[in-house]
């Protein structure tokens, strides 16, 4: 049986594209803040707050997983 898997190729490509999308969204997000005239200090503070919020959500999601 051939182990060549079209699904594997699709997963690989989608993985790269999804991350590209995430970075693209982040770049647009920061550009939006800059367009609002926010200073570097304010933008960095907001990015820090977003990271802390994402960390909280990730911990909650993992905490709610079953143990086994």
């Amino acid at each position, binding site marked *: 049986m*051939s*182990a*060549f*898997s079209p*699904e*594997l*190729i699709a*997963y*690989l*490509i*989608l*993985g*790269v*594209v*999804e*991350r*590209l999308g*995430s*970075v693209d969204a*982040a*770049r647009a997000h*920061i550009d939006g803040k*800059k367009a609002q005239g926010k200073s*570097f*200090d304010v*933008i*960095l*503070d907001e*990015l*820090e707050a*977003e*990271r*802390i919020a*994402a*960390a909280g*959500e*990730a*911990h909650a*999601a*993992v905490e*709610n*997983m*079953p*143990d*086994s």
Partner: protein
Amino acid sequence: MNDQKDLLASKTTWGILLTILAPLLSKYFNFTPELQAMLSSDLAQIVGLVLAGWGQLSRKASITSVAGIPLNKPPTTPPVIFIGFLALGMALLVGCAGKPLLTEGTSPAERAAEAIAQAEVGLTIAYRAVAEEAARGVLTKAELTDFLGKLDKASGILTKAQALRRDGLFADSLKEALQSKSLLGTVNGLLAERIKQQRPKT
């Protein structure tokens, strides 16, 4: 068709990657003007399609591994490799090779700000990926907890970098931000190890 080969030895694979990545690379990365023009032109994609077609027409071997990792269990392997690629893409694109997110300036304050912005975005993406994986349920709670622990360590260093920046200690802030990014990059190693653990026992 009984011959076996690695995915990375496939002309079709490289053709598909060239076709898809050429325009994306020119969009996200800075190259010389000549290379930038070539990547953003149709030529790179046409070459990629021809290469992929040639690979299929001349195919004599089945692909049985990816970078040396056997694919004896394709139904379980793809999601795990998918997660690895999440981190790989994150590290490549948010790392030092990417275009600046916040500032292209070279003053100490701007260099620190850019490094912090990249690390902040990388960590936020990573935390969101963990939350998505928790919902997907491919990895175990223990595995994701371990993953979170590493991200939390990078996060702590980044918090310190932010504090140093607020105090005006930009050189120290930059050093901490780069360390945070470096630690974030080691997540790739962790995930690669997990991929190896998914290898079928031979």
